[in-house]
């Protein structure tokens, strides 16, 4: 019997929450299909970080270059670890998961399931539920327990926080590399506002349509005493700086109020804001996935709504 292997990510020397969630699920599945659980971790802090996890085995690659994620080295290290019998690999759907999941599956000639939000056993079969089509549809997929990679969307289920004492194994990584990391670029929070500190966020998406309309959002945010944030397309269009982006590749926010305007709610965006205390979404598409996480919603025209709401708020204050 091969392992159910979790590829863990480290953040500031500790195993990330999404990775802990995967360990919980690996143990739950492992108990049902009689498979041991292993965890893999990279970098000089990996041995300390992994030693108390609820796994039977822990594989660590201590290379200093892996103190920060390095695609080529991490892939080579993972392929080395997979020399040990492994039936299923779980990876968080982060940059690492996007890099390693499909390529390792291809190199091993294994099956792959992406964007998983749940894993369960049905009889003898592992069944994954995945989000596809921008979160508008879900797919129920059978995962063969004879070698498969599943990338999982962070926050899909809670971690049980159980501890253990896995047998530690040190694995070597190759030294000759084709890829060199020139520098790490830290998040640019210092150059702009820090949206993670805002109590109220007026967050705009594609529905803003034109950079000139951002002024309406700024005025509304000012009237609310909040800040303007956005979804990925607004940053990619160059209309707002990256520091304003909420979501998987941006910031994770938990404000008291998240006013989502013209944001459809792609899974990558929801990942960064679904835990806000109060979510109010305005989107012309009544079927937009954002309404599944919002507390209140409206299909009003956001460009018409913003000035009217600003006026009401200003009138009330005055």
């Amino acid at each position, binding site marked *: 019997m091969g392992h159910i292997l979790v590829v863990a990510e480290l953040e500031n020397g500790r195993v990330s929450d999404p990775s802990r969630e995967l360990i919980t699920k690996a143990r739950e599945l492992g108990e049902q299909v009689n498979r041991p659980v292993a965890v893999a971790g990279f970098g000089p802090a990996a041995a300390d970080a992994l030693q108390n996890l609820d796994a039977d085995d822990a594989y660590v690659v201590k290379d200093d270059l892996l103190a920060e994620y390095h695609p080529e080295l991490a892939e080579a290290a993972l392929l080395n670890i997979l020399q040990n019998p492994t039936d299923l690999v779980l990876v968080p759907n982060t940059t690492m998961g996007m890099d390693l999941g499909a390529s390792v599956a291809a*190199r091993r000639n294994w099956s792959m399931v992406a964007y998983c939000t749940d894993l369960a056993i049905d009889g003898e079969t592992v069944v994954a539920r995945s989000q596809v089509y921008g979160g508008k549809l879900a797919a129920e997929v059978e995962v063969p327990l004879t070698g498969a990679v599943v990338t999982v969307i962070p926050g899909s289920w809670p971690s049980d926080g159980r501890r253990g004492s896995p047998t530690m194994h040190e694995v070597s990584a190759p030294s000759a590399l084709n890829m*060199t990391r020139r520098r790490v670029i830290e998040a640019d929070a210092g150059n702009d506002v820090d949206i993670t500190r805002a*109590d109220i966020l007026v967050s705009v998406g594609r529905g803003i349509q034109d950079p000139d309309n951002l002024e309406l959002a700024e005025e509304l945010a000012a009237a609310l005493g909040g800040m303007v944030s956005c979804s990925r397309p607004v940053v990619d269009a160059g209309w707002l700086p990256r520091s304003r982006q909420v979501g998987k590749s941006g910031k994770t926010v938990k404000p008291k109020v998240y006013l989502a305007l013209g944001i459809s709610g792609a899974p990558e965006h929801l990942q960064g804001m679904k835990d806000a205390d109060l979510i109010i979404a305005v989107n012309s598409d009544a079927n937009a996935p954002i309404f599944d996480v919002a507390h209140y919603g409206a299909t009003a025209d956001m460009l018409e709504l913003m000035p009217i709401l600003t006026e009401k708020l200003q009138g009330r204050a005055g």
Partner: protein
Amino acid sequence: MKIAVLMKDVPDLVEDLEVEDGALPLDEMSFVPSEWDDQALEEALLIKEEDGADVTAVAVDTGDVDTMLYTALAKGVDRAVKIVGDFSRSLTNRQRAQLLARYCQNERFDLILTGVQAIDDLDGQIAGLVAGLMGIGHASVVRDVHVAQDRVRFVQEYSGGKMAEFDLACPALLGIQAARKPPRYVTIAKVRQVQKSAEIDEVEDSVGETPVVTVRRLYKPESGGHAEMWGDDVETVANHIVAILEEKKLLRG
């Protein structure tokens, strides 16, 4: 520098997705180029403008991909290639990746760009699959790609706004998150003009055996909850928002 851009079209999410018998009626749906592939195409064109690269747009013929490829030609790629064979709309990503990897291997591209993901890649992203099948250096969630001689320099996005700059020997494959500039626009008239003067090259191939995942069903997710809806009247919606913020004591003054 010889660059390939791997492109595919995906169902248009503007349309309501109606599931029939646990699957999408793909033959009845309208398709648009995957938005991340458009970003990859734009980045390739920017590299070409910067360094004079030779750019080929490549797609597997699973339906009407001609418009997508002619649009790429109108935007400025040097060549458009369609991999033809007995392929249906339900071709899996794994099968698609096998065809693309084989073509790219034969053509010996220095750099292959494609979108970081697509809305329908349930069985893996094309970037990772093709790179894995070819056994070449790769990275995903990438932006700011520049080339110099036989190497490529790029920025990979980590999470939380943190990034890293890498340098990679070619041949290499990068999954593009966003181009340096928004994808350029070409008019339909220009695409039609290109259709008259340019040709799409065809390369024949067939799908071999690939790992499969069995999709039991596709369905509209039953959400854990749904927003209480306030309708579409802006006055009413504005009043609701003010009231709820007032109730939660979140208004200033």
